[in-house]
């Protein structure tokens, strides 16, 4: 049973760590939004796994909050980027500080 516990925490921790790497490296704001969404879902899964392993239902209401927070965060940031695009003169947000689009970079990254 301890091997199962170690495997569960290692897989969830590894997934969260890789999502954090994409959150730090992600070239555009939308990459970071996707990484944050995935990270919050992985955190919710980790809390549920912790509750299931210890058979302690204390953190179960926190899951509802985390699930709703991921949705509200990603939707609000997507609308914010859309508003920046509306306000930019060049049409792609470069003049307002958004990074270079993925199409314009080299195809290696």
């Amino acid at each position, binding site marked *: 049973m301890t091997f199962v516990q170690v495997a569960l925490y290692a897989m969830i921790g590894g997934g969260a760590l890789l999502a954090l790497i994409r959150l730090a490296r992600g070239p555009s704001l939308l990459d970071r939004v996707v990484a944050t969404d995935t990270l919050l879902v992985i955190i919710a899964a980790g809390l549920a796994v912790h509750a299931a392993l210890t058979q302690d239902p204390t953190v179960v209401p926190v899951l509802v909050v985390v699930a709703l927070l991921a949705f509200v965060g990603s939707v609000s940031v997507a609308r914010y980027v859309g508003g920046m695009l509306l306000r930019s003169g060049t049409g792609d947000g470069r003049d307002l500080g958004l990074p270079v689009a*993925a199409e314009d970079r080299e195809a290696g990254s």
Partner: protein
Amino acid sequence: MTGLSDVIAFACLLAGAALCLTAGLGLVRFPDVLSRMHAGTKPQVLGVLLVMVGGAIRLDGWANVWMLLLVAAFQLLTAPVSAHMISRVAYRRRHVRRDLLLVDEYGGPGRQDTRYHGDEPGDAPPEDPGPHPG
């Protein structure tokens, strides 16, 4: 009874945790926003459902089961909405590698949606807005 239900619960938990690890790998490895979102939504629906089923088997009492079911229903309802908004802004922001697309129904010569006519900020202008009025 407890042995069999524990085995089923741990199998569900292990599958959900494996999907979480897969999402992290896909987020790091994949090239653009749409494919990263494709990888990232694996634990959002199936992984969370599996983990919730495992947790509902392990935890006692109907209150926990209903609350885990509520979380799963929220995920099923909200994942398509946020994915739709992010992917639309990503396409208009040209964060999609169009050389990797097989089908591009939104672009092309005869597309209808070349002018911004929405009334919400998430409806971003297209990448070629034409001459600016004023």
